[in-house]
């Protein structure tokens, strides 16, 4: 890449907690690819699902504050790893193009917000701005032997009119990245099925059923692991995998990576930098297996 | 009978018999409500429309003129709408010179099947003319000068 890429970065609340490894690996990967990230100063919560279930203006106000923070950096676009934040920030921008709604929202804010900010996902800029072919060139530790399925979740590409990225029924961005990293990608049939989202706490049973189905499917297609791009999906599939097994009488032990973690691995970053140790379902054996496979391949060559 | 004062403005439409006139019929059959200002003159082909018809209509007191023919390449006479477009474009550019806002004239395509589209065209054009209000009237010797000027130009 001759032109250096430069973005405002909105981590989102879960980056400070349950999805800390997504944040770590995203930052590490971008650094490794000379993509400069500047944190949105004093960012606050986007409102996530709960806000828009209460009221659209409240939800947009919470997002608008952050968009305004980006504007204050003198930038007109920002990126975030989290699809839920992405959806809220994009929705706020879109809805606030309507004058009536904009006034309603500005009334909730200290000062009228400048919301003319394009938000994209980390995944999107890696695919569209940096380019998969350029990623391919940077691979030093190919994911040899890894058979992986890509799970996108429900809101990364939907609604298509708003998200403007990849295919709404059959996204390929992560599949293509994984393929570029040397992994064997098995088409995951339930790419855009919901995992149970934020119901983990109030209605665990729902997550058990929906995420359970995802794990069963992953197993049935022979995936050793899944990659995700969403903190909620990852949390439900990884942190709750034991609960799911317990609830459904299954015995899954499928590591659930953030795609940035595997990308970082292939770029030669350390497991620590990528927060591999923070995954609940340990990827240890799988990681060792991959190293081993690579050695065999090299000997053969 | 003069136009219903205050209510209506005078809008003249020149419509191709093969497409837009049928489109207006289709709109009628579908009961697609429209403003009442427009009066339609049927011509065999938009290519039959002499730009001077439009100019004279305006000078004689029309507040807007709408011409509607067949979609490009769909002309019943192969190339009539193409000639029409060329001529009317030139005329369109001259309108300001003789003191008419170019928005008082519009050239559009509506096929015989597009009743709904016709409804939209009529409604939006009528609104457009109502925004502009009555057209300036050109009278007396000035009028004949203007006309001969246009004749020369076209």
């Amino acid at each position, binding site marked *: 890449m001759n032109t250096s890429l430069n973005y405002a970065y909105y981590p989102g609340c879960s980056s400070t907690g349950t999805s800390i490894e997504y944040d770590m690996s995203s930052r590490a990967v971008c650094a490794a690819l000379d993509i400069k990230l500047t944190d949105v100063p004093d960012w606050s919560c986007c409102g996530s699902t709960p806000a828009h279930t209460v009221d659209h203006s409240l939800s947009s106000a919470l997002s608008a504050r952050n968009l305004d923070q980006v504007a204050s950096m003198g930038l007109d676009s920002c990126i975030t790893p989290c699809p839920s934040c992405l959806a809220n920030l994009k929705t706020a921008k879109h809805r606030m193009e309507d004058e009536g709604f904009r006034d309603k929202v500005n009334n909730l804010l200290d000062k009228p917000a400048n919301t003319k900010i394009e938000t994209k996902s980390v995944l999107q800029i890696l695919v569209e701005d940096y380019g998969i072919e350029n990623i391919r060139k940077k691979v030093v530790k190919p994911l040899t032997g890894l058979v992986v399925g890509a799970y996108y979740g429900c809101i990364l590409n939907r609604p298509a009119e708003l998200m403007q990225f990849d295919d709404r*029924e*059959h996204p390929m961005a992560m599949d293509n990245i994984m393929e570029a990293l040397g992994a064997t990608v098995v088409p995951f*049939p*339930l790419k855009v099925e919901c995992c149970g989202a934020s119901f983990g706490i109030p209605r665990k049973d729902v997550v058990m059923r929906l995420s359970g189905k995802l794990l069963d*499917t992953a197993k*049935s297609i022979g995936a050793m692991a899944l990659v995700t791009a969403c903190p909620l999906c990852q949390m439900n599939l990884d942190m709750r995998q034991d609960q799911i097994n317990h609830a459904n009488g299954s015995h899954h032990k499928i590591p659930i990576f953030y795609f940035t973690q595997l990308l970082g691995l292939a770029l030669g970053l350390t497991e620590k930098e990528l927060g591999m140790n923070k995954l609940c379902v340990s990827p240890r054996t799988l990681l060792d297996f991959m190293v081993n496979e690579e050695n065999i391949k090299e000997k053969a060559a | *009978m003069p*136009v*219903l004062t205050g*209510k209506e403005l*005078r809008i*003249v439409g020149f419509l191709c018999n*093969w*497409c837009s*006139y*049928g489109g*207006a*019929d289709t*709109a*009628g*059959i579908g*009961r*697609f*409500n*429209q*403003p*009442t200002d427009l*009066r*339609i*003159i049927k*011509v*065999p*082909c938009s*290519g*039959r*429309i*002499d*730009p001077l*018809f439009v100019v*004279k*209509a305006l000078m*004689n*007191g*029309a507040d807007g003129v709408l011409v509607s023919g*067949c979609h490009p*390449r*769909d*002309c*019943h*006479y*192969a*190339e*009539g709408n193409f*000639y029409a477009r060329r*001529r009317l474009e030139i005329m369109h550019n001259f309108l300001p010179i003789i003191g008419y806002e170019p928005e008082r004239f519009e050239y559009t395509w509506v*096929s*015989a*099947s597009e009743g709904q589209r016709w*409804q939209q065209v009529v409604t939006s054009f009528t609104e457009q003319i109502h925004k502009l209000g009555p057209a300036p*009237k050109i009278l007396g010797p000035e009028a004949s000068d203007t006309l001969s000027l246009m004749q020369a130009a076209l």
Partner: protein
Amino acid sequence: MKVGVFVCHCGSNIEATVDTAAVAAAAREFPGVVFATDTMYTCSEPGQDEIVNAIKEHNLGGIVVASCTPRMHEQTFRRTVERAGLNKYLFEMANIREHVSWIGKDREANTNKSVDLVRMATEKLLRNRPLYSKKFDINKRVLVIGGGVAGIQAALDCADGGLEVVMVEKTSTIGGKMAKLDKTFPTVDCSSCILGPRMVDVAQHPNITLYAYSEIEEINGYVGNFEIKVKKKATYVNWDSCTGCGICMEKCPSKKATDYFNEGIGKTTAINIPFPQAIPKKAKIDPDFCTKLTKGKCGVCAKVCPSGCIDYEMQDEFVTEKVGAIVTATGYDLFDWSVYGEYGAGRYPDVITGLQYERMLSASGPTGGHIKRPSDGKEPKNIVFIQCVGSRDKSVGRPYCTGFCCMYTAKQAILTKDHLPDSQSYVFYMDIRAVGKLYDEFTRRAMEEYDTKYIRGRVSMIYPKGEKLLVRGADTLMGSQVEVDADLVVLAVGAEASAGASELAEKLRISYDSYGFYMEGHPKLKPVETNTAGVYLAGACQGPKDIPSSVAQGSAAAAKVLGLFSKDQLESDPQVSIVDIKRCIGCGKCIQTCPFGAIKEMEFRGMVKADVIETICQGCGICTSTCPQGAIQLQHSTDNQILSEVNALCQF
């Protein structure tokens, strides 16, 4: 000229929102008008008699009728005034129904507008002149475009009626979609058994010339005298000597060619005859797959052909045919269903279209009539049919109902049970459209006798689950989400206008709707006519149709052609241009712009003048608005007549 004005109530269609009496009253004040009245139904017999009597009584010189659109009744009233001894062009119509009473309820404004329209018509009428048609000879041959069942029907009816028929078919065999079907609803009789003989008739009929694997390049002329340029695409096989023995097919080494006839189920050879009953039964080479043509190697077919008719050098060829009428029967194509990502967009081999399934059911098809999963060749047990794929779906730009999918799905469900008695069929539907003789009974049989499970709801998703496909839909009657483990999924894919329909329409100068289906002359009264004289429609090119309706339209179109040709000469439309010799300066601008070459130079006292060939002039009037002198005038639409309408409207 003494003018009479008749303002029609059209029952309440006009009267409800237009004060017709007031319109008549206002008309009485117009210059030239000596008689004006309002009538209940002007087009009815008493209504017409009223006109005739008024003409006699007040010895009127011209008539204005304010009623519906001239597209509806102009002909009717022209005949009426003729009956009363007037020239039929001394008549004008004011459209106060479609253009007034039906598009607004403001009675005052409508009445006022109607008065204006009547004034316009009157002013024009005052400048009308009697016009007289010329007779011209016609070429009693007919061109039929498309060799599907509708085209075949039209061609045979015309040919049996003694007309010479030229049939042009795009593919290398006639038969169209029907030839691909196994059985037909609601009788379940064998498609090729009923169509086959008709195809043979076409081939053997002395009056029919068939150009297969050919397309329409160019169309010139007008009703009675069209000139058609036909492009015979290169087949690389000399069809005069090809006997259709099929040895070339047996020996051809390149067996990976797309099998269009079998809808891509299986492959065929680069040189092929689409199917055993093909008409004409001649081989053609698919240049994309023939290694001789692509790489210059092979040449096997040339070696084995007993009649030596392979010609790798063959080029497209053009022939010209003269005809007097054209029947368009270009049919339909299947909607491209790959836009449905939720159905796999073509990624799952065991999700196929209804037409592919027909080929599977057909004994002469690629599977020899055995139902097999394309993926592994296994017999399916649970078969799911999904209706309305690309029909009644705004989100894919196809809001219309295709109309025959419900029926062919029921048929396929029944046939499935016949082929595989242990199988179970499920049909996801929204509404069952079974309007036709014995149609509803047929769908009931599918449920009652053949135990097809009908589920009322759309399908949201199909995805592979092990060897099976999981179909997730809704049963809105149960109000629940339902899943079916399917071995095979058959999509009832809807119909759309056939590829290239709009391009052909432009050559024919007929109109088409926003989906590319051709526009009939009148939705009720002219179902097979178009607005272009001498061009008729048959079958699905006008809108999706099943076989009975297509055949009916084929015959209807043929009847229209036979009617047209029942006279030896046609009357030309006298609404043509004429040249005022005194004014014409012989600049030749009109000659250049005339799209029909209807204007030629002539010599008049040593000066060049323009002259119109009346039988060729189509009356577009482009010349009139081109002429710098106003010397050439389109009769019945002269500058004076149009300006009189303008002035009637615009007078401060």
